[in-house]
């Protein structure tokens, strides 16, 4: 089983940091990660970190958001840790299915996308910090035509 050293990026709660996150993931994904898993990691980390940046802090509070990526064989593990207000995305209710465009609610899709594109998602609150772990599993079967 191959294993790369974990890589860690620390971000501030500033929307401009999302670009830095995207570039960092792109660099990690160049090390033998499939395009499907790379897309899923980019999407889930974008959603998770954007949520912390936009809703995790009280007014003017500075947050530290640490992101780690680690690959173990066919599994890629992403950990996101922040010192913002307590929030467990695994307990968020699923979005309401809209029956028409007029009735469709705007928003509340980020966590649903994370649940759908990650293979697993776990949360714990420890020592005043949110710790979210996302797992992505490389498919061993050939990509469909």
């Amino acid at each position, binding site marked *: 089983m191959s294993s790369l050293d974990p890589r860690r*990026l620390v971000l501030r709660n500033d*929307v*401009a940091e*999302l*670009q*830095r996150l*995207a*570039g*960092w*993931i*792109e*660099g*990690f994904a*160049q090390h033998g990660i499939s*395009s*499907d898993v790379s*897309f899923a990691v*980019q*999407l889930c980390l*974008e*959603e998770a970190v*954007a949520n912390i940046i936009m809703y995790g802090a009280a007014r003017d509070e500075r947050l530290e958001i640490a992101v780690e990526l680690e690959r173990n064989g066919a599994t890629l593990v992403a950990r996101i840790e922040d010192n913002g207000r307590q929030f467990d995305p695994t307990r968020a209710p699923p*979005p309401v*299915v*809209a029956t*028409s*465009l*007029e009735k*469709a609610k*705007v*928003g509340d*899709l*980020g966590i*649903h*996308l994370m649940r*759908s*594109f990650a293979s697993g998602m776990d949360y714990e609150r420890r020592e005043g910090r949110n710790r979210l772990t996302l797992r992505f599993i490389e498919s061993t079967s050939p990509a469909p035509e």
Partner: protein
Amino acid sequence: MVSPFRREAITAMTAGAGADGPSHRCCMDLSAEDLPGGITKVVLQGRFDTTGAVVMELPFNKIVTERRKIIVDLSAVNFLASYGIRVLLVGAKIVKSKGGNLVILCPDNNVAKVLKTAGMDALIPIHQTETAAAAALTS
């Protein structure tokens, strides 16, 4: 009276720092052109993430408030996050509220998967060719 777009392009481009990996550029383009039948085609290009969506929101909303038949070409969008979906959904709702329609053209595989997972394919029609998209707007 609504002025014709003929062809209008808006580009938002910013460069990211390279200290944590390869230099990353976040770039998104929007262009709009008039097609026969009173249809406006909006071509989006780049990464429709939070950063791109924040920048595209105003020019996109301007178009959807002025036009009634809109094709949004996503064939050159390589990434879509929830804020991008939000911009598309708000746009489609605005057009619908004015008696018009907005359809999506040719998203790539991963972008189509995001749209489907979010349930957008049931709310905003998705077409694979411009001919089919235009026909849906003029039927």
